[in-house]
């Protein structure tokens, strides 16, 4: 079945450690890929999108078409990075609907 998979429900690291949040997808073709984040008591918001190839809050995400992955990385985690992170995509062939398919989410906990 076509899906977005985030294999880790919880990722716990110490402040200053590198972080990698994994995302794998099973769609063929070239989906549009995103990472959304939800901080405690805040609404879901866009962190970054592959199409803009930008770095937000020190996070980057690399698309690996061969492995169909879009892992989110940050070299040095900060306590304020603690949040729920969702990988999402717009499936190929969705035209211009913008319909997002979300993964299950990974909780990142950064310990002091």
């Amino acid at each position, binding site marked *: 079945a076509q899906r977005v998979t985030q294999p880790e429900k919880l990722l716990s690291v110490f402040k200053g450690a590198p972080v990698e949040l994994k995302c794998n997808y099973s769609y063929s073709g070239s989906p549009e890929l995103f990472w959304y984040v939800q901080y405690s008591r805040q*609404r879901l918001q866009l962190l970054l999108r592959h199409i803009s190839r930008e770095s937000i809050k020190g996070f980057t995400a690399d698309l690996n078409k061969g492995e169909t992955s879009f892992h989110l990385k940050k070299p040095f985690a900060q306590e304020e990075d603690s949040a729920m992170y969702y990988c999402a995509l717009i499936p190929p062939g969705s035209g211009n609907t*913008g319909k997002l398919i*979300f993964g299950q989410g990974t909780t990142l906990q950064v310990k002091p």
Partner: protein
Amino acid sequence: EAEVAQSPRYKITEKSQAVAFWCDPISGHATLYWYRQILGQGPELLVQFQDESVVDDSQLPKDRFSAERLKGVDSTLKIQPAELGDSAMYLCASSPAAGPYEQYFGPGTRLTVT
């Protein structure tokens, strides 16, 4: 800064009752989305509007759910009758247009069906 508004924030209802949620998107945003998020899962699209027209309602349980966006601005999602399995967070999002654009989410409505 403009935000998507939703009400109510919390709703408790008994099964078989009717319930309605309201969403006011960011002014000027033509595209409006309703998502359902079951605890421990990611959001799942229920329905998408482009202005007042439904673009995608393939995942909307149409026997009990309905959605409208009559003037292409705010929107209402209704469930009648509610079932225990409908307990979830209902999220509204908007974007300036359909496509690979940032979606701006509201705070959500937490529904509990007893």
